[in-house]
């Protein structure tokens, strides 16, 4: 069954940025619909987070505050919607899946806000396909969804501020975190830590994580080179770690390994929005290169929660033709923080030699590093090896190949962006008709409280 639903503003992604954008746009009197792939709103940072009151304060969790305001705003939230197609002519198609059924819905919009977030970057190394090896955010998400880790010995490795946060989360869930290994050298991390004095909240948060992690060893300039299976099974039993000169073995039950974040820009690319480097290009009002399409949060640059929320508010206001200089100034400050993060957690060159010839890089199609190295870029390699053509559509091996082989992701993107049943593609919208998009002439300044 196919359904048609119209709105003034369609927001794709109900993380902090999307929630903020939808709330503000709806409060301005616009008809707003927000779609999300997940069962619950909140994005990855607020995923399955318990929002119970903190015992020491009567303040509600920021997630709960944001959701309460979203629900009050009149914006309509629809979860479990996988957007697999969209067109700048004014529609998006989503697959709505329940436990027993699935159907395609068509959303017509006047303006579109992309808040598609980011995903973890994975780098292949021998043994990374073993059960027991997870992403860092991955293990946190699974734990929050009911995977009990109490009593497990876990190594948390890779790069980025998420390592300490997740390690603290795992300890709180009863696990023993044996090691937290950050690939970035202290030399690069120290200036980043020093720059945090401008952001006291982040510094306090970091200190809290360290207190929880008393028993774990925190190492910088170290990374995992191999995951070892127990001799009798295909499950993880130990890892080989290195600091570049010395290599040693550490036993563990689980490994959480992730190399920071990559933006989800597929939908923006499908719509024809211009990129700047790996990110979606936007102006100060979060407008992309395509009229009537905005982008907020991590797809525009990995700048964290506060920046994402501010960008959401800016886009929500801009949809109503308004802006506030205060917000625009604050978001600029956060961009400095993003630059510092990028420098501090830049991937070291040694990680390029992590995969061996027989290490699988494309997990969907089991394509090895050697098989991919034989080609010069995506087009040839896809045709000859099927790498990047499995169900994840290159979301995992794409960023890995970019780092390991220097392969730029393909510029042209085609629908469906996610695997969908064949009948989902037989929609009459496959041939696109032009729908007028309301032109946003000028953006006026507002003093309203946002």
């Amino acid at each position: 069954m196919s359904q048609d639903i119209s709105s003034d503003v369609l927001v794709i992604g109900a993380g902090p940025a999307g929630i903020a954008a939808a709330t503000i746009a709806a409060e301005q009197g616009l008809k707003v619909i927000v779609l999300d792939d997940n069962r619950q709103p909140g994005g990855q940072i607020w995923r399955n987070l318990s929002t119970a009151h903190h015992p020491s304060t009567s303040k509600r969790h920021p997630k709960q505050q944001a959701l309460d305001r979203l629900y009050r705003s009149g914006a309509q939230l629809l979860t479990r919607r996988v957007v697999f197609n969209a067109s700048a002519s004014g529609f998006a198609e989503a697959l709505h899946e329940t436990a027993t059924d699935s159907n395609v819905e068509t959303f017509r919009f006047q303006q579109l806000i992309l808040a598609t977030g980011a995903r973890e970057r994975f780098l292949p190394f021998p043994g990374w396909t073993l059960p027991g090896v997870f992403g860092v955010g991955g293990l946190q998400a699974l734990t929050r969804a009911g995977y009990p880790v109490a009593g497990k010995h876990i190594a948390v490795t890779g790069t980025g501020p998420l390592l300490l946060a997740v390690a603290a989360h795992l300890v709180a869930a009863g696990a023993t975190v044996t090691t937290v290994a950050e690939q970035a050298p202290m030399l690069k991390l120290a200036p980043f830590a020093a720059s945090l004095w401008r952001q006291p909240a982040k510094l306090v948060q970091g200190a809290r994580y360290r207190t929880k992690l008393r028993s774990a060893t925190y190492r910088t300039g170290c990374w995992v080179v191999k995951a070892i299976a127990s001799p009798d099974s295909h499950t993880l039993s130990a890892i080989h770690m290195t600091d570049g000169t010395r290599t040693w073995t550490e036993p563990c039950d689980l490994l959480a390994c992730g190399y920071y974040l990559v933006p989800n820009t597929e939908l923006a690319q499908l719509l024809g929005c211009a990129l700047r480097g790996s990110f979606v290009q936007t102006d100060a009002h979060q407008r992309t290169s395509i009229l009537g399409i905005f982008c907020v949060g991590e797809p525009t640059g990995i700048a964290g929660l506060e920046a994402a929320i501010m960008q959401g508010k800016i886009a929500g206001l801009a949809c109503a033709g308004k802006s506030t200089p205060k917000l625009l100034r604050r978001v600029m400050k956060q961009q400095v923080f993003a630059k510092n993060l990028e420098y501090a957690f830049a991937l070291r060159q040694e990680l390029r030699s992590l995969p061996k010839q027989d290490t699988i890089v494309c997990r969907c199609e089991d394509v090895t590093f050697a098989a991919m190295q034989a080609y010069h870029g995506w087009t040839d390699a896809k045709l000859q090896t099927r790498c990047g053509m499995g169900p994840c559509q290159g979301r995992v091996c794409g960023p890995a190949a970019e780092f390991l082989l220097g392969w730029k992701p393909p510029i042209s993107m085609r629908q469906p962006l996610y695997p969908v049943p064949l009948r989902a593609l037989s929609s009459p919208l496959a041939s696109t008709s032009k729908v007028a998009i309301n032109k946003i002439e000028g953006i006026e300044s507002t003093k309203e409280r946002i």
Partner: protein
Amino acid sequence: MPETLALKINGQLVEVPSGTSVAAALLIASQPFRLSVIGEPRAALCGMGICFECRAVVNGRAHRRTCQLFCEAGMTVETNL
């Protein structure tokens, strides 16, 4: 104690607290999620619906991302191993 519910994973009855994702239930039951193209056992990686490593047959429907689905009483999950 949280409320629990029972589902069938590869024919075995498994009891989990309500609010558990199907991926978490498969990990609790120590079941690999799928066999890869060359026959390696695989399990969930990203936990957020991106990598498709956790896909399984749920209520008779193939290729469901189990990390994005929550357990329901009487659900059947098969990993086709």
